[in-house]
């Protein structure tokens, strides 16, 4: 790897993280600016919960949801590509696609009566949403492993699980990681809706701003969500590139 490419890679990761950190530092001190821009608002700065706490809560929710989504998506993807599970493949794909066509708001509407208000229904919606990218990429990645490689592995005496662990998963790791990244980014965006049912996320200022006609809150929440999404994308993207290079 050349030094220039390395430097370029570092910047790609560091820049969004720097933006996020700057926002977390600047936004709590930006009351006068928002007041100048929107003088009619009596409270131009969201202060119910600190932006740092909101970001951490948001990130925690996304992390947990993504871990579940990866566990389910990877598990189903592996199962559906085994000889014994291949008949499940169309069903698994169909279920995952149906999960994706369901709007997140509808999932929340159904989940709240079952799970109550707060983080739980949000987590359910995020997991349902996060599974498809991981599942799809796991199946695609495993099916792209060259047939000759698998044939040779069988001929040399790899057991089924050892072949999966040492040959198939390493070769499919790039696409799978792309699925994980997509799943996490979608979750960062979708998690904001959770605040409509009482979860504490970066969506809280956005929802409150929309309800109370407070544009400043909406902008503050949106800026942080955007910066967080870019940061997550950058970090996971760097991991993915490292895996693909092998």
């Amino acid at each position: 790897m050349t030094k220039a490419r390395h430097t370029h890679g570092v910047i790609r990761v560091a820049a969004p993280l720097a933006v996020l950190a700057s926002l977390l530092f600047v936004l709590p001190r930006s009351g006068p600016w928002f007041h100048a821009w929107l003088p009619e608002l009596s409270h131009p700065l969201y202060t119910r919960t600190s932006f740092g706490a909101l970001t951490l809560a948001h990130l925690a929710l996304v992390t947990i949801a993504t871990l579940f989504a990866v566990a389910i998506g990877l598990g189903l993807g592996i199962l559906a590509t085994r000889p014994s599970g291949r008949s499940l493949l169309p069903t698994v794909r169909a279920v995952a696609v149906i999960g994706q066509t369901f709007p997140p708001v509808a999932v929340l509407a159904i989940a709240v009566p079952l799970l109550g208000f707060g983080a739980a229904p949000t987590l359910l919606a995020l997991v349902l949403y996060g599974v498809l990218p991981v599942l799809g990429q796991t199946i695609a990645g495993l099916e792209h492993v060259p047939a000759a490689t698998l044939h040779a592995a069988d001929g040399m005496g790899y057991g089924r699980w050892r072949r999966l662990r040492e040959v198939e998963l390493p070769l499919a790791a790039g696409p799978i990681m792309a699925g994980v990244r997509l799943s996490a980014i979608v979750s960062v965006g979708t998690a904001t809706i959770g605040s409509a049912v009482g979860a504490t996320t970066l969506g809280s200022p956005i929802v409150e701003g929309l309800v109370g006609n407070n544009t400043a809150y909406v902008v503050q929440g949106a800026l942080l969500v955007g910066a967080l999404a870019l940061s997550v994308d950058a970090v996971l993207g760097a991991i993915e590139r490292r895996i693909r290079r092998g």
Partner: protein
Amino acid sequence: MIEFDHVTKRFGGHLVIDDLSLRIDDGEFFVLVGPSGSGKSTLLRTVNRLVPVDAGAVRIDGEDVLSRDVETLRRGIGYAIQSVGLFPHRTVGENIATVPRLLGWPEGDIRARVTELVELLRLDEPGIADRYPATLSGGQQQRVGVARALAARPRIVLMDEPFGALDPITRESLQGSLKAIQRDTGTTILFVTHDMDEAFRLGDRVALMLDGRIAQVGAPLDLLHRPANDRVRDFVGGTRARLRELAVRTVRDSMRVGEPAEGEAVDVADSLQDALAAMLAQRRDRLPVNSRGERVGAIVLADLVANGP
């Protein structure tokens, strides 16, 4: 010893191997040759149980392969295929080390064996063991494939058209390497090809397979001199059979001992095909013959043409 005992295999309704019996002795370089669809690859794969037989038995040293644990069985048999199937995420060295590692060899032994094989297969470009397969030429990849098949010093090696995708020069060089290694190690090799020249060049014995049966089995010259029927005669070469024969026989068989000749000498161990090529190249109809650098006689074009080798 590999023994096929009334082996039958069907794919769907199609009979691929038809009640076939065959014995391959220890240390033999045995070639299964035949057109596409003759069942030769399928037969090969019954040995390491990549294809289960429908009826009959395949035995190694008298023991039915079905009675062995399938992974243990496969780790004890070398396997090389035309598409090579190297692990793209592993270096050349790691690829070669695959089976020793599956068998749990100590790390030091594995390293030593990899070094040995890199030399044996003439993969002697510096640093090649640390490169990834994608950076190698087709010929180098197949050398790695063969090295990987030989890595754990298996007594039996199965090879399914390993050189089929290579250019003629690379193929001939690999054939030479393989034949020499086989002679030195006494490994039993079961080799599948559709290339008759390759079969005759490599095989101690050759079996011609047609429609799931052995049409004829024997030493290359048996098939050339005494084809069992017209189909065999067609397959072993028809009018080109004599040319093939020249490739199988050596100068030693046809030289005139003690006679003089002019020109650049050929060696007694060269094939008659090489000798003919040398005559054509030098525009002479007789050439001197050397053995270990000493002049021992002459080889004469008329002998090749008139009497036959």
